[in-house]
């Protein structure tokens, strides 16, 4: 066991954990007053629900002995054999528990990301059951495929910190949910204006901060690679902030605060799969493109007519996909991408993108339909108009 790496990854795990409350605030600020708590709960509850599921069986499905390249076995169920030493740890330098908990934080935030798509119109009971099923049936396999010894990793797909596992998967699920759940009542007629942008900016700041744990920690050691991932993360994000507000400014004449925050998230998403494989200057290019691309994606959304309330598809789906492909283009550290003459890598990345979208989208549709049939996903129209805070949680956000 390497104590330095252990210290580093434990701190990184804490940083990644902090991202989920950060996401709660990021999303919470974007909805209307009457749904702020409901939206916050969609993230916060994942800390409770997913963590326990992870210990019980999720970790084992993801990192247990590989079964046919598709899923892990039950060896680590109930954290059996996951101890303070390195025995059985997928990272030989880390206590098994350290590796497990670092991965746990990734599992927590992924279903929380989806919730932006169905904000302001989801029943809490349906949400909880959906998320539990989604974790075990979508996230755990995806995680196994890429990092747990499954086929995608074996194929050579590069995903440093979760472009496919975290962002494409949640983006595809978001698209399915947005379509299946339908538009919010009043969509297109009433204004849907963020009720608290300073809260959203705070959330973006926390996400940026925590993402250093996410990406640099994915080096799983406190080495130069971690430093590189840290720097590429920061630089891509900074570049995406700039390019998003420049795109906005060209498009509508004003740079917005929400644009800056959205650009930051777009940059963070896009660099995630690439962080340890590309140089800082390549990261800046990736960030610059990501900002413009995701802005454009959101502009296009209205053409399609689904109501992805907080733009999970536009930012996580699109940004994650772009990042995965960009990794295949720009990879130059510990792997070779197109620019190093290795077109095959781009092809592998492309396969992983398609497989991820198809698998996650289809599975999400199935889970959604089943849960909808069981408990119903959408609240009554009257409840939706009154607001989910009062009708789902018997609370109101503010008494100012």
């Amino acid at each position: 066991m390497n104590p330095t790496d252990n210290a580093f990854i434990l701190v990184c795990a804490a940083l990644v954990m902090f991202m989920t409350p950060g996401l709660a605030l990021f999303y919470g600020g974007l909805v209307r007053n009457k749904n702020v708590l409901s939206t916050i709960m969609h993230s916060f509850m994942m800390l409770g629900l997913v963590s326990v599921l992870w210990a019980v069986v999720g970790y084992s499905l993801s990192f247990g002995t590989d079964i046919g390249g598709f899923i892990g076995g039950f060896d680590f169920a109930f954290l059996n054999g996951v101890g303070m030493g390195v025995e059985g740890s997928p990272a030989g330098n880390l206590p098994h528990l350290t590796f497990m908990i670092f991965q746990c934080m990734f599992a927590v935030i992924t279903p929380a990301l989806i919730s932006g798509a169905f904000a302001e119109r989801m029943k809490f009971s349906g949400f909880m059951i959906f998320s539990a099923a989604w974790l075990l049936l979508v996230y755990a396999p995806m995680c196994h495929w890429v990092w747990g010894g499954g086929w995608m990793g074996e194929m050579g797909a590069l995903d440093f910190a979760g472009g496919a596992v975290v962002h494409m998967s949640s983006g595809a699920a978001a698209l399915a949910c947005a379509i299946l759940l339908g538009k919010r009542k009043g969509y297109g007629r009433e204004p849907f204006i963020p009720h608290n942008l300073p809260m959203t900016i705070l959330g973006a700041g926390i996400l940026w901060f925590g993402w250093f744990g996410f990406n640099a920690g994915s080096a799983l050691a406190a080495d130069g690679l971690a430093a590189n991932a840290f720097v590429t993360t920061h630089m891509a994000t900074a570049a995406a902030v700039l390019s998003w507000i420049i795109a906005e400014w060209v498009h509508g004449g004003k740079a917005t605060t929400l644009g800056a925050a959205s650009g930051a998230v777009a940059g963070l998403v896009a660099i995630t799969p690439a962080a340890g494989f590309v140089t800082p200057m390549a990261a800046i290019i990736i960030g610059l493109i990501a900002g413009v691309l995701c802005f454009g994606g959101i502009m296009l959304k209205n053409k399609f007519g689904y109501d992805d309330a907080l733009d999970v598809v536009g930012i996580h789906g699109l940004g994650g996909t772009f990042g995965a492909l960009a990794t295949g283009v720009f990879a130059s550290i510990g792997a070779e991408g197109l620019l190093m003459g290795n077109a095959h890598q781009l092809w592998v990345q492309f396969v992983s993108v398609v497989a991820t979208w198809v698998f996650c989208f289809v599975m999400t549709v199935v889970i959604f339909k089943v849960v909808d049939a069981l408990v119903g996903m959408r609240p009554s129209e009257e409840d939706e108009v009154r607001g989910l805070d009062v009708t789902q949680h018997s609370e109101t956000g503010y008494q100012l």
Partner: protein
Amino acid sequence: MKKIEIVTRTFKLDDVKHALSELGVTGMTVSEVKGFGRQGGHREVYRGAEYQVDFVPKVKIEVVVEDERVPELVREAKDAAFTGNVGDGKIFVSPVDEVVRIRTGETGDEAI
């Protein structure tokens, strides 16, 4: 002159404003209010302590107009605010003796 006060659902504000603008109303004043009525409220619970909240968010639109325009404006405002469900709200009409436009000092109907 008369003041028309429309107390209705918050998400109907734009519709009512639009209906009145169409009829040439060029000014109105809006406040956020809480309404108590047949519609009923909701329950809130904080660490097990229950509170019955009888008030529902509503919007109050005040517009001062010439006497002769009252019937027409009331009718249109009513239609714009109508959903048919309990809680649509009320329209009140009351007398106004004088109006002054601060910027110009105009008074009476001219000042509206």
